[in-house]
């Protein structure tokens, strides 16, 4: 695996008015990693994600992408090379599935034949056969199918970095598990080429998907380690409490069985 840093936060803070969401955040994510960010709502995980693609500007500190401060990048151009998947899915309702996936390639002025080829390839990759789905419309698809399209759309321009903002949060448990597996396989299939930054509030999702898991609370990192290390050596009372929720679930199961 290449060890180039892709995302670097250096003493980043973010305040919204009087409200400090991120007091002081520093971390580095290297190329090819699949990192999950685990936190409850208000922990600052989505704010952190949006500071990577510049939708939110830090109050102070530096965010570097590919070793270059965000401020030195052409933001619009950078975003075209960062995939973005959100919980609301947010497919454009007035565009066909094909056109939804083609948005970024079109912005990058790819040739139409190349775009078509890419769309078909991606639909097959996310297991929506292109001949059946390319010309359909977002409102004709189920939530899980829509998010598969969301995933294809994020991967369309072959970005090296993909940001996931609780992409499976609105889906039912079975669809959720399927897509977790697929996202993991997808990441593996890129052989360390692509970095996935995956925000979630679901403990099991974070532990299953992440090669490293960043546990956040009140805008600070409680622990940033491999899933094994987190489970075996929780670094703080908060992490222990989080893990205990899973034990409580298992207790419930034992009782029911």
């Amino acid at each position, binding site marked *: 695996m290449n060890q180039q840093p892709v995302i670097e936060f250096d003493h980043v803070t973010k305040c919204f008015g009087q409200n400090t969401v991120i007091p002081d955040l520093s971390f580095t994510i290297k190329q090819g990693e699949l990192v999950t960010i685990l936190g409850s709502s208000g922990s600052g995980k989505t704010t952190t994600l*949006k500071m990577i*693609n510049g*939708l939110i500007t830090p109050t102070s500190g530096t965010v570097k992408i590919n070793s270059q401060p965000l401020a030195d990048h052409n933001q*619009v*151009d*950078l*975003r*075209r*090379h*960062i995939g*973005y998947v*959100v919980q*609301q899915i*947010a497919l*454009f*309702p*007035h565009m*066909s599935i094909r056109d939804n996936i083609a*948005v*970024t390639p079109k*912005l990058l002025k790819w040739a139409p034949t190349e775009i078509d080829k890419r769309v078909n390839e991606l639909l097959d990759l996310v297991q929506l056969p292109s001949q059946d789905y390319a010309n*359909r*419309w*977002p*409102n*004709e698809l189920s939530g899980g199918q829509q998010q598969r399209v969301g995933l294809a*759309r994020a991967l369309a321009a072959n970005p090296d970095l993909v*940001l996931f903002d609780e992409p499976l949060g609105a889906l039912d448990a079975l669809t959720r598990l399927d897509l977790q597996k697929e996202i993991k396989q997808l990441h593996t299939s890129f052989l360390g080429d692509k970095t996935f930054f995956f925000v979630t509030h679901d403990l099991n999702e974070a532990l299953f998907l992440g090669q490293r898991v960043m546990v956040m609370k009140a805008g600070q990192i409680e622990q940033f380690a491999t899933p094994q290390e987190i489970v075996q050596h929780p670094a703080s009372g908060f992490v222990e409490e989080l893990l205990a929720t899973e034990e409580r679930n298992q207790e419930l199961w034992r009782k029911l069985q």
Partner: protein
Amino acid sequence: MISYWNQNASTILTDTAQHAQLVFGSLAIALVIAILLVLLCLRHDRLLTGLNYIFSLLYSVPSFAFFALLLPLTGLGNTTATVVLVIYSEYVILRTFITGLRAIDPSLIEVATGMGMTSRQVFLKIQLPLAIPTIFSGLQVALASTMSIATIAATINAGGLGTLLFEGLQTQQMPPLLWGIIMTVALTLVSIAVLRILQHVYQPRLGGNH
């Protein structure tokens, strides 16, 4: 009635054509201005609210007084009439336009931005197409009210169907008055039908039963 038509058919038709020209011209100008204003104010939401407020004030000025007020500036005739009609329809069009834009799911705009669209591309590719149904409903309301306000333009020599109405009033004759009303209503109905067709053509498909 029929004999009035036989004698004045060409006048009635010319008045109708003038009326249509006045109304459609004003609406077109108002629509272009609304789009430009929204484009210019893309990053300044408050400015747009302020503009909307100003137009609402202007809208509350009685139209007859407005024609009179503008006379020293733009004189008798078409220009004054067009300016007044543009201002009146601008309020309705801008207001519905803004409402339409604000009704769009904010996550769509955030994702479009996050995918690398400039704010202009977000406007042209996402916001404008999704606001089309509300833009058209605004146009329809503006059309109906402009049709009737435009009849007053006859008092400042701008022509149109108001000429017939005032002729009827002044000479105490029913036929020109009725022809004026009939043609105004007919023109309104036809234009609304045309607007509906245009809406059908320009409204983006949102999937569903196809």
